[in-house]
């Protein structure tokens, strides 16, 4: 049974394991979408279902086996039990019988000794009766004993006379009158050779005295057998006289003398004196015996005489045949000619084998349950796979739809833009015609709308490009501070108009030059600042750039002063409650920063620079429920916003996309009515190469102009002072700070004496509205009153303010030692202002500054200009000459091919795209073909490199000139072998970015 359950267990385990494996396999399959082979999965699932079915059938079968084996076990044990019980009974019966038989034997010897051995006999009937009655306990199974004498016919008469009765014949036939059996009625025995009349008998069988035992057939046989063998002989069962019970008679022969064991039957017969018979009452014998045994109720006992095999005689036991198992036990009653058997049966039907039934049922139930579980698992697996496949399909469709959407947007936007330009052009023209004021107003409105539409389309195009993944980030070196100055300059007009303070602060830990995509970076910041600008009517917009590590380090400090909003209570005069740039409360930024990935995990890339840029404003803020959808495209904070402030709501989602594209995160904190602070992180690389060829919006100031100067910054608000210091320090000027008017005056006085510092920067609202101007006025007054000696040099004083009236600036200039710098502060304005005030480099024109860089690149370069239009040619040549290039002009593509056939000395070629006869693309293709041919020939050695100026690889940079920069694509130019494009007419910046790339290698030093 254990073996079976073990087998079953193994089967179940193997099934489960197979299913698991299948599950895993299908998982693997699902992961690898391309390998998803649905048919094979189905087939294997079918197979596992079949295996499950087989397993369940096997399990049920094994439960049946368990049942049958247990049942067989029970049956065997029952039979064993029966056999044991039967054998026990038989043995006891035999023992008891033997005991009785022995006693009868002893009685026989007694008779032989005392009846025949004594003369006269010591035993008479009375003695025999007494003796036998008193020794009945020795023969519990015997109904009675009697002694019959051997009487020959010749002796009959004498015998009869001697005893006084006739030998009577035993009447066997009369059964019905057994109980009133009267020996007197018996007939005398017929004449026979010999007789065996009973002479002594026990009280219980006194009636058989004088009956001839030889006349009964059973007794006769018995006597003969006993006499011949010398042992006890048993009759077959018969109805006993009188008691009418079935019984057997045991006969012992009494001999005249002790015979040897090997005496012949003849000797024995001869020596016979008489016979001692004892009748066993079998039913009572057996009853008595069974009475003594336990569990007699359980079994049914039958006793058979089986001397005659074919018709056994039932000696004991009711006749009804109980079905069920039978056990036979053989009993030896000491007579070898007689055979007896005991048959035992259980009285009751065997009880149902409950234990076997329960166990096998339990196994079957377990099997079914496990089967059910596995089946359910298989089904759910199948369902999951189906669902997965359906999801996969849906996902594919969704993605396809998304791509289609993006493509549609991109296409449509592009298509709209082209005619829109026409519309705008026509509107412009319409404005120039003679219109009355109403019409003028309509046209202006239409143009404004058109411009807004173009703007929107550009944004949509951007978004679509980002979403379809077509935007690629550039990696060029750039100056973060320059970018931020540029952003500030973009918004300076607006901030001045609105009276908002716009400021930038770049931490000095941020490296000067980073590598990344400056345009996208700028776009992000521009978007954020533009957004803030839109929603801010008072207060400030403050852009800060820090390193992530720096903020992490100063987190504790940061937390401490995250109480930027903490009220400044120690100065009661201060009308501004907070320690921020404009003194207005701002949204606490640290909360959104904390959630950034970069703040949680450190970035271990070696040269990665992680920047955090925060744009803080004191605008209207964003309501709580609007905060969740602020980065969703076309979702503004709420619909009323777009009515009040305009805009499409697409800017922030573009910003988010761009930030994520740059590997950063964007977040914000906002408090309605207080302001919002947007923060984002971006990853750049540190530029370790020489920063010579950085693209700048503003020419780099010559730091040597101001190097070593000292400046005093007077400002009561430290946030603002910090910004001023940041900008001034960038010029290489040392800074001191005076926060209170007392310290300012004392520093100023000292300055007058020691002529250091050279510069003083005072905020216009240093300690409150207009207090900066007041300070200046009081200084001037002091000077006019002569308190200070006029011989002493007065440091230049610069008043910083976002709005400075003309009268104020005139006053500053007239007094001679003051000037004003309009906020927002940026490097170029401060530098220009300082130069003007200090008289450094006044002659140098700004435009010259800007073109210096270009000049450095183009000086001495041989450039071929190809254009069919004489005017264009002239202008292009003029422009390039201005930057020091040596320009050659040709009119057509064919001429250009001639000129550019190697060897030549040109460093670059500017090619008009649209020309008659042969356009720029065609010409370029042909030029490239010629170059390739020659390069190949040089390589194979067909042409000597010497005759080609030792250049093994001829490739002259060809730049397309196109009037339509928007339409021009880099790919389009690259396709036909061009290296880039420039706008026509030239724009300095664009020209530079196109040219610098090709000419930088040998143009690092323009002076050489």
């Amino acid at each position, binding site marked *: 049974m254990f073996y079976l359950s073990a087998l079953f267990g193994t089967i179940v385990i193997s099934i489960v394991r197979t299913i698991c494996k299948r599950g895993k396999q299908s998982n693997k399959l699902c992961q690898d979408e391309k390998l998803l082979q649905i048919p094979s999965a189905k087939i294997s699932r079918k197979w596992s279902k079949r295996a499950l079915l087989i397993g369940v059938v096997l399990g049920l079968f094994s439960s049946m086996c368990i049942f049958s084996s247990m049942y067989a076990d029970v049956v065997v044990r029952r039979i064993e039990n029966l056999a044991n019980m039967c054998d026990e009974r038989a043995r006891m019966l035999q023992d008891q019988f033997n005991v009785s038989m022995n006693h009868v034997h002893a009685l026989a010897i007694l008779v032989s000794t005392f009846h025949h051995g004594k003369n006269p006999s010591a035993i008479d009937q009375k003695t025999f009766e007494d003796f036998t009655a008193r020794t009945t306990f020795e023969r519990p199974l015997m109904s009675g004993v009697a002694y019959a004498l051997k009487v020959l016919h010749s002796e009959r008469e004498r015998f009869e006379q001697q005893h006084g009765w006739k030998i009577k014949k035993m009447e066997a036939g009369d059964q019905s009158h057994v109980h009133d059996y009267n020996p007197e009625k018996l007939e005398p025995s017929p004449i026979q050779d010999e007789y065996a009349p009973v002479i002594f008998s026990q009280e219980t069988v006194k009636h058989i005295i004088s009956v001839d035992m030889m006349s009964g057939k059973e007794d006769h046989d018995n006597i003969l057998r006993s006499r011949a063998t010398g042992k006890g002989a048993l009759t077959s069962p018969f109805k006993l006289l009188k008691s009418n019970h079935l019984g057997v008679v045991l006969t012992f022969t009494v001999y005249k003398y002790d015979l040897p064991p090997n005496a012949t039957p003849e000797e024995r017969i001869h020596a016979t004196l008489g016979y001692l018979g004892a009748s066993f009452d079998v039913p009572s014998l057996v009853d008595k015996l069974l009475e003594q045994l336990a569990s007699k109720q359980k079994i049914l006992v039958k006793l058979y005489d089986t001397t005659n095999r074919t018709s056994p005689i039932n000696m004991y036991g009711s006749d009804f045949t109980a079905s069920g198992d039978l056990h036979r036990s053989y009993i030896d009653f000491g007579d070898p000619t007689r055979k007896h058997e005991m048959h035992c049966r259980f009285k009751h039907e065997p009880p149902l084998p409950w234990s076997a039934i329960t166990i096998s049922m339990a196994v079957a139930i377990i099997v079914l349950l496990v089967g059910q579980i596995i089946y359910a698992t298989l089904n759910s697996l199948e369902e999951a796979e189906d669902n997965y496949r359906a999801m996969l399909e849906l996902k594919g469709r969704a993605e396809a739809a998304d791509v289609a959407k993006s493509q549609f947007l991109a296409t449509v936007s592009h298509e709209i833009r082209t005619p829109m330009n026409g519309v705008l052009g026509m509107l412009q*023209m319409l404005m120039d015609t003679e219109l009355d004021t109403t019409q003028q107003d309509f046209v202006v409105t239409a143009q404004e709308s058109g411009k807004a539409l173009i703007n929107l389309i550009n944004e949509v195009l951007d978004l679509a490009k980002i979403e379809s993944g077509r935007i690629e980030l550039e990696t060029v070196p750039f100056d973060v501070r320059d970018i931020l100055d540029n952003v500030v300059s973009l918004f300076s007009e607006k901030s001045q108009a609105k009276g908002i303070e716009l400021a930038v602060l770049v931490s000095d830990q941020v490296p000067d030059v980073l590598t990344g995509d400056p345009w996208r970076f700028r776009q992000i910041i521009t978007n954020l600042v533009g957004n803030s600008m839109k929603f801010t009517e008072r207060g400030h917009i403050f852009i800060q750039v820090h390193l992530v590590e720096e903020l992490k380090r100063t987190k504790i400090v940061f937390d401490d002063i995250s109480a930027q909003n903490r009220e400044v209570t120690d100065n009661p005069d201060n009308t501004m409650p907070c320690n921020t740039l404009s003194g207005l409360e701002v949204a606490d930024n640290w909360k959104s920063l904390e959630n950034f990935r970069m703040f949680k995990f450190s970035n271990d890339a070696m040269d990665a620079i992680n920047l955090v840029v925060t744009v803080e404003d004191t605008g209207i803020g964003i309501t709580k429920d609007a905060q969740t959808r602020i980065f969703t495209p076309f979702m503004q904070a709420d619909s009323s916003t777009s009515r009040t402030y305009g805009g499409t709501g697409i800017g922030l989602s573009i910003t988010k996309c761009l930030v994520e594209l740059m590997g950063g995160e964007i977040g914000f904190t906002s408090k309605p009515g207080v302001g919002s602070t947007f923060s984002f992180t971006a990853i750049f690389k540190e530029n370790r190469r020489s920063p010579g060829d950085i693209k700048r919006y503003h020419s780099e100031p010559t730091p040597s102009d101001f190097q070593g100067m000292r400046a005093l910054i007077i400002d009561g608000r430290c946030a603002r002072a910090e910004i001023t210091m940041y900008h001034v320090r960038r010029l290489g000027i040392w800074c001191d700070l005076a926060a209170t008017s007392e310290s300012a005056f004392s520093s100023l006085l000292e300055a007058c004496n020691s002529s250091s510092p050279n510069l003083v920067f005072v905020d216009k609202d240093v300690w409150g509205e207009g207090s900066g101007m007041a300070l200046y006025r009081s200084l001037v007054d002091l000077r006019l009153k002569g308190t200070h000696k006029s011989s002493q040099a007065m440091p230049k004083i610069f008043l910083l303010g976002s709005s400075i009236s003309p009268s104020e600036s005139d006053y500053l200039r007239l007094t001679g030692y003051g000037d004003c710098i309009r906020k927002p502060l940026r490097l170029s304005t401060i530098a220009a202002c300082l130069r003007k005030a200090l008289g450094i480099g006044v002659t140098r024109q700004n435009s010259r500054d800007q073109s210096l860089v270009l000049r450095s690149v183009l000086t001495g370069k041989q450039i071929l200009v190809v254009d069919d*239009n*004489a005017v*264009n040619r002239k*202008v292009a040549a*003029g422009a390039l*000459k201005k930057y020091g290039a040596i320009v050659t002009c040709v009119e057509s593509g064919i001429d250009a091919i001639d000129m550019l056939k190697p060897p030549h000395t040109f460093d670059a070629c500017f090619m008009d795209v649209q020309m008659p006869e042969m356009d720029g693309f065609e010409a370029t293709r042909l030029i490239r073909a010629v170059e390739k041919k020659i390069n190949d020939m040089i390589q194979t050695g067909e042409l000597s490199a010497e005759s080609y100026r030792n250049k093994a690889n001829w490739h002259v940079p060809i730049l397309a000139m196109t009037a339509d920069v928007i339409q021009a694509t880099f790919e389009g130019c690259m396709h036909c072998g061009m290296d880039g494009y420039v706008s*026509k007419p*030239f724009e300095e910046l664009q020209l530079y970015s196109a040219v610098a790339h090709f000419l930088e290698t040998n143009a690092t030093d323009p002076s050489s």
Partner: protein
Amino acid sequence: MAATPMNQLSALVNNMFATGLLDEQFQQLQMLQDASAPDFVSEVVTLFCDDGERIIGELTKLLEKSSVDFDRVDAFVHQLKGSSASVGAQKVKNTCIQFREFCQQKSRDGCLKTLDSVRTEFYDLRSKFQTLLQLERQIQGFYPK
């Protein structure tokens, strides 16, 4: 000193900018003029005027024909557009853009109409340029190199 050629010149140029005849490109041209190329502006302007006159003549001829070759018209207009862009003749350039659209639509009426406006604008500009060049010459006469 109200009527010095210098003032007149700057007034004229300012006026041209204000009326939208010229754009920043012309300023760029002026900046290109220096000691190494003293007559740069006048050279370019002269070129532009001659070129423009020729093109307008060609266009007039082309459009007079019963079957107009719009491709050729387009090529000429493109040239004119390029030239005007180079000198910063904003108005002429914008009209050229419009002209090309009509060309692409093969609308002869539209072309004729825009040719008229181009012509008007061009001659207007040319007369102003001529005044300008005259003034420049005067200035250069006053302030010889």
